[in-house]
């Protein structure tokens, strides 16, 4: 059932993301050819060429912004509208467990976040005529290897994923709690987000205070950071993120299971 849910979730979101990605890549390509002889840098006076070039770049950066904003808006909107709005009457009467609805939204959101980041990265390669950036790539990889060790290639993505998951689930949680209110649900959701954020920060501070005098902190504070020390630190952050994500998931599931209150 989760696979079926994801199939429809992708269908309903892809129709917005795919054209946006395509437009971004096209504009990256256009910008690359708008500046074949580096006219922008060479021009001494204002010329139409410079204007076109400037406008092209402005649109390109606007599109990058649009990709990120769309990703965030859709994470919010798909949950709010599809589950907590009128469409919720359809979704919650499907023979599907509540956790599968949440997992569906979460997984598709994570995948779109990753794709958005990838497409923006690819567009940068396209824009800069790629060769320099591609030549830099081995150095970046080497750098990661030296600072984090081979384990870094697992710990860093794990950290990013756990942070992404807990971030998205916190938004869901805010909306799930916001729908408990009879009126001004959107406003209540914003309020709930602030409350959840505050609680999360408090938990971080408490954890830091608890760990302040342990061997763990000595390891991190040591002058020369070893890859082992880095990975231990980032790995525990990743695990912390996962625990927070799991807590959010459990709360969203509880609220939607027992306190669902569609308008």
């Amino acid at each position, binding site marked *: 059932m989760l696979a079926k849910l994801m199939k*429809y979730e992708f269908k309903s979101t892809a129709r917005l993301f795919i054209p946006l990605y395509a437009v971004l890549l096209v504009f990256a390509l256009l910008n690359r050819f708008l500046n074949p002889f580096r006219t922008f840098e060479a021009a001494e006076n204002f010329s139409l060429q410079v204007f076109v070039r400037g406008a092209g770049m402005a649109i390109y950066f606007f599109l990058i912004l649009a990709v990120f904003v769309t990703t965030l808006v859709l994470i919010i909107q798909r949950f709010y509208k599809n589950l907590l709005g009128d469409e919720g009457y*359809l979704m919650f*009467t499907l023979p599907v467990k509540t956790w599968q609805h949440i997992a569906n939204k979460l997984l598709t959101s994570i995948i779109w976040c990753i794709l958005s980041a990838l497409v923006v990265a690819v567009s940068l390669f396209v824009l800069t005529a790629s060769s320099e950036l591609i030549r830099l790539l081995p150095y970046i990889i080497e750098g990661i290897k030296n600072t984090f060790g081979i384990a870094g290639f697992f710990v860093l993505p794990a950290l990013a994923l756990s942070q992404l998951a807990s971030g998205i689930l916190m938004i869901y949680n805010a909306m799930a709690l916001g729908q408990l209110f009879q009126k001004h649900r959107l406003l209540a959701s914003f309020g709930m987000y602030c409350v959840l954020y505050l609680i999360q920060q408090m938990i971080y501070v408490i954890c830091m205070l608890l760990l302040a005098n342990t061997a763990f902190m000595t390891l991190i504070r040591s002058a020369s950071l070893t890859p082992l020390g880095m990975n231990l630190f980032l790995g525990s952050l990743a695990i912390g993120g996962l625990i927070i994500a799991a807590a959010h998931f459990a709360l969203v599931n509880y609220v939607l299971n027992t306190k669902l209150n569609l308008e």
Partner: protein
Amino acid sequence: MNKLLECKNLSKYFGPVRALDNVTLTIGSGRIVGLLGPNASGKSTFMKICNDLLTPSSGEIRIAGFEPGVESKKIVSYLPERNYLNDWMKVSDIISFFDDFYADFNKEKAYDMLNKLNIQAEDRLKTLSKGTKEKVQLILVMSRDAQLYLLDEPIGGVDPAARDYILETIIRNYNENATVIISTHLISDIEKVLDDVIFIKEGQIVLHKTVDEIREETGKSVDSLFREVFRC
């Protein structure tokens, strides 16, 4: 009488408001039941609880022995009183959607009804009029071979001519072992199709009888009895 739907002391409070107040009710298979009451009498709340869209404050509810959940949703076909269609799908997409999720969905039946009502399968849901959307929802709901149909105000938003067709559709498309519960306040329109009648007032069941019993005992039609019971 077998027990398809059974409630015991079912209550739902919204703060101080008692939307459902100590409802005890048994409905068997093979019936067409009118759930009748004025606005805000608890009809929709009752249907939402049956569909697991609301959790009761107290009491019990069982549908074919199941508490509202995945198992009950497989056998209950629900028409809510609002439009739940999203705006990006075509009519054919939402039919595939139902076909994917409900094992008892009959695609041919759905297309057949679409044809009869002159609704184009390739039209986008967004472009349909309000009445057509309601018809599409009814087609989706009635194309399932469910055990229990819960129809919340199925004729509220359509013109009187379409009402007859819709009622006919409802009667023609449920099998003899299934039960249909129709909530409405447009009683005279549906009176002729009902087997049983439940009057609900301020969250409480005030009457649960067969239409024949009502006629024999009071000599009145359901419509005139309703006007008497719910006189303002």
